[in-house]
């Protein structure tokens, strides 16, 4: 057949017409729409068998029970565990978002060793050998006490293993980060004696007088507190919130009592004065008072009469009298301390003054009151066997009582105070005041070993990182350390095989100890951490492994306790904010952020209001009267004695005039774009102020000036 122009055209036209009338067009249209429904770049989750596993959250001291839904091997959803003694269903947003930590882009995926400015991967064997080698050198030099450790808490088996390693190595320098638990112990020690702690029976009290405790802002065991607060109305209980800012707790309270920041201790003493003057205290209770009760009584009548207290605190004298009367006359009153989440800076004067209120109305160890009892020791580690080097080193004095004192020593001393530092579950370079000088101190330490799961601010300063499993990948006992009325230990369980080449910190410690050989290794004869836990948790292991938790104590402890008020009787000075600017900057605790070492998850950050974070700008709260000329949503420069920062303004009628509030928990520098480089870390702007007599960093805020940017 001859293909000429004519037949070619005809053929072409025919083909076009044919295609046009055929179903091809319709089919392609349909296909294209189906394609948009199956875009290969939109993930399709794989289906599988549904199972549930129980565990415990250890992202905060709350220790909530969790139920984890899995599809085959994949955990897909975390929820609160019903009928768990801490949270009974319900969980906070951080726990629920827990799976995001598992796949966090900032996770440390293998052991890392710093070379110059960069980290390099190394194997676990090499990493352990390297750490052990360094420690052997320190021990050989004859100053084993120059090995220090900073951990999140003292309780629990992993912390126990670190303490055991330090002790048998020969160092007393074990530190914990400030936490509500540590303040409970400090307070109990000052008023009742060493080894005691305090719990508050919020769910039964009929009158909670809170000195800024963020009962629904993450104070204590958050979910437990939420529940106690939610049942308040049904129980006809009252909450009075004393705080300089209308926090969520203040807003939810029956009464909000605005107070000049930093004068809470004075108000507590003022209330004590009214109670004493009007004979509202319980005579029987005062029999337990030791250490200068009369001296205290005289002092407060003189220095804390209502009118005087009113002047100091900004709370009306008539209100002080009213609060005192209501508090003293309530059936089951309790006064609660620990501003915000309770883990920020606090002064012993404030802690002691507030707790003295509890002692005065005799609610100690009564239902709805404050429970004072010895710290629970549920683990039974075998006694240590120590060689002479260990004995000599361990009996030396600690570099300081608190971690901030250690940091200060390191910075001040020209000789190395610490040769090697272990950091576990703590991020001092972020969480302590004046983070710049903390970083400087950490930088001065020749050998820093981080056990962090994430490349956080402190891990970045480390020489070697031995990455831990996250709480979803490990077995561990989790004691609730949060001022609860009951004392519960939960068991966190691996709900997924480790996602990366990480190790349980407990196993890492055991491996290091074994590599150190000699008497140290002898103290770590367990094959694995899991074996260690089972043996040291002996008494409660059955309950832990079967129920997922063990209740150590519950209900009011019996017996009365002695109260020593000598610290207060001397009327120690109230802490003043550093600097001499006119306004005061205070940190704000926001439930949707985390102010401990870890950063809030992408989900949690997503819930944060644009009145807290806008783009990468932090938003500060200020009363319109104080803001003079600054516009809402406009920019301003904050200057404190520690530094300056550019901030956005949120005019907020809930702020007491004269103060500026800045949220805690932003300004992280993790390698996770969803949560990092957003806002600034308020701890950069606040410097520590040490309370004489207690040694605590009690900087509740700092003086600040603000100007238009």
């Amino acid at each position, binding site marked *: 057949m001859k293909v000429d122009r004519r037949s070619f055209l005809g053929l072409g036209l025919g083909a076009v017409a044919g295609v046009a009338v055929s179903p091809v067009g319709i089919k392609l249209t349909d296909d294209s729409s189906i394609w948009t*429904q199956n*875009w290969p*770049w*939109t*993930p399709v*989750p*794989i289906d599988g068998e549904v199972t549930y596993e129980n565990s415990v959250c250890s992202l905060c001291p709350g220790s909530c029970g969790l139920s984890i839904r899995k*599809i085959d091997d*994949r955990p*897909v*959803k975390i*929820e*609160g565990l019903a009928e768990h003694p801490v*949270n009974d269903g*319900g969980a*906070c*947003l951080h726990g*629920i*978002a827990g799976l*995001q930590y598992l*796949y966090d*882009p900032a996770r440390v995926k293998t052991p890392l060793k710093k070379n110059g400015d960069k980290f390099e991967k190394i194997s676990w064997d090499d990493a352990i050998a390297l750490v052990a080698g360094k420690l052997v050198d320190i021990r050989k030099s004859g100053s084993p006490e120059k090995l220090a450790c900073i951990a999140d808490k003292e309780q629990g088996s992993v912390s126990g293993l670190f303490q055991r390693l330090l002790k048998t190595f020969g160092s007393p320098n074990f530190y914990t980060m400030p936490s509500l638990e540590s303040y409970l112990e400090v307070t109990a020690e000052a008023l009742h004696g060493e080894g005691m702690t305090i719990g508050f029976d919020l769910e039964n009290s009929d009158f909670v007088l809170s000195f800024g405790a963020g009962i*629904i802002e993450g104070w204590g065991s*958050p*979910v437990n507190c*939420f*529940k106690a*607060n*939610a049942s308040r*109305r049904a129980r006809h209980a009252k909450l009075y919130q004393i705080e300089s800012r*209308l926090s969520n707790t203040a*807003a*939810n309270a029956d009464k*909000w009592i*605005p107070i000049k920041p930093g004068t809470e201790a004075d108000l507590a003493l003022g209330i004590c004065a009214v109670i004493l003057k009007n004979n509202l205290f319980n005579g029987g209770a005062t029999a337990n008072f030791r250490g200068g009760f009369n001296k205290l009584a005289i002092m407060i009548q003189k220095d804390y009469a209502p009118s005087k207290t009113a002047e100091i605190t900004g709370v009306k004298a008539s209100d002080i009298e009213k609060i005192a009367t209501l508090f003293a006359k309530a059936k089951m009153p309790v006064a609660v301390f620990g501003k915000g989440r309770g883990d920020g800076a606090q002064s012993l004067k404030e802690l002691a003054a507030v707790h003295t209120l509890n002692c005065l109305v005799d609610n100690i160890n009564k239902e709805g009151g404050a429970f004072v009892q010895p710290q629970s020791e549920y683990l039974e580690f075998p006694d240590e066997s120590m060689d002479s080097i260990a004995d000599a080193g361990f009996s030396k004095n600690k570099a300081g009582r608190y971690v901030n004192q250690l940091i200060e020593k390191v910075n001040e001393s020209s000789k190395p105070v610490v040769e090697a530092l272990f950091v576990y579950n703590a991020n001092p370079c972020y969480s302590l005041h004046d983070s710049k000088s903390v970083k400087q101190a950490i930088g001065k330490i020749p050998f820093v070993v981080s056990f962090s799961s994430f490349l956080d601010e402190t891990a970045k300063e480390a020489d070697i990182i031995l990455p831990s499993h996250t709480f979803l990948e490990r077995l561990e006992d989790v004691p609730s350390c949060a001022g609860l009325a009951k004392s519960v230990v939960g068991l966190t369980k691996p709900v997924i095989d480790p996602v990366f080449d990480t190790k349980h910190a407990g196993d890492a410690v055991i491996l290091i100890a074994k590599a150190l050989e000699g008497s140290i290794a002898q103290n770590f004869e367990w094959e694995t951490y899991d074996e260690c836990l089972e043996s040291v948790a002996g008494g409660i292991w059955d309950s832990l492994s079967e129920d997922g938790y063990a209740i150590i104590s519950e209900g009011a402890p019996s017996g009365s306790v002695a109260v020593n008020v000598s610290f207060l009787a001397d009327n120690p000075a109230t802490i003043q904010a550093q600097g001499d600017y006119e306004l005061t900057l205070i940190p704000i605790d926001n*439930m*949707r952020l985390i102010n401990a070492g870890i950063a809030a*998850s992408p*989900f*949690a950050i*997503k*819930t*944060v*209001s*644009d*009145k807290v*974070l*806008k*783009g*990468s700008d932090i938003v500060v709260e200020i*009363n*319109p*009267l104080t803001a003079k000329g600054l516009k809402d949503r406009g920019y301003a420069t904050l200057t404190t004695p520690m530094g300056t920062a550019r901030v956005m303004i949120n005019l907020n*009628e*809930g*702020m*007491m005039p004269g103060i500026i509030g800045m949220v805690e928990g932003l300004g992280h520098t993790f390698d*996770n*774009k*969803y949560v990092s480089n957003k806002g600034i870390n308020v701890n950069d702007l606040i410097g520590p102020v040490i309370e004489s007599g207690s040694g605590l960093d009690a900087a509740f805020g700092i003086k600040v000036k603000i100007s238009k940017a």
Partner: protein
Amino acid sequence: MKQNNNKAHKFGMVIDLDKCTGCGSCMVSCMSENNVPFKEDESNKKDSITWMSVYKLTNGKSFPDTQIVYMPRPCQHCGGKGDHGHSPCVSVCPAVATDYGYDTGIVSQIYTRCFGCRYCMGACPYHARYFNWWDPKWPEGMENYLSPDVSPRMRGVVEKCSFCYHRYQAARDIAYYEGRDDIEEHEYQTACTTACPAGAIVFGDLNNPAHQVHQIVKPDPHPDPRNKHVVGKSRNPKVFRLLERLGTNPKIYYLSEREWVRKAGDNYLDGEWDKIKNYHGATLSND
């Protein structure tokens, strides 16, 4: 075995605003349950997908008389005028990509049907609908936590709270499998409800007098004599709905002891509130 379909459910919520702490657990539980994506900057709240959103309201007074309340806002699963199922959004969707379930009262959203005209978003006065302006993307490895119960959405479609419909399906399937006529109250609870640490959210069948939500709300089955579009008004004077007088007939009820909070639920002309504040919640005539 037969599936019980003779009695229509009307799932709904009552949220106790005096208990709500504004903690955001409900928001995160919803995101995690329903495979909601996240992006680098979520601080522009007008393009941030949060099926459950928690508003912060103030009473507008100055220091120290200021008060705050938090108001969690899922999709209101509006029954529409007269509660006939013509929800503001459903009635406008040109492609039936969002529909009213007469057996459940749930307003569905079919992602693969939606072609992204966003008319429904304009129709919804509660800002309960969200558009996928971007392709959803998870950091490497994080897709591993996605749940197969809810399909991740593609760019260009609208999404919103589904009352965790897959949980209803799962409960119904179990009941069906076990030969039961109907599901129990505890068998179908939404992810925000079970997450709430304050127990502020109560979920259940508004048609079922045995359910807590019915007992708290005490919905009036008759149209409001003052406004024929309003049906299911609460007979509890402390309970109100958002924008009730528009006649959208939401199935989310709110509870508060505080009068200013109840008043903030709707718009009132000067003086109107005082006249009706004690009349079950508050609604005025539209006619």
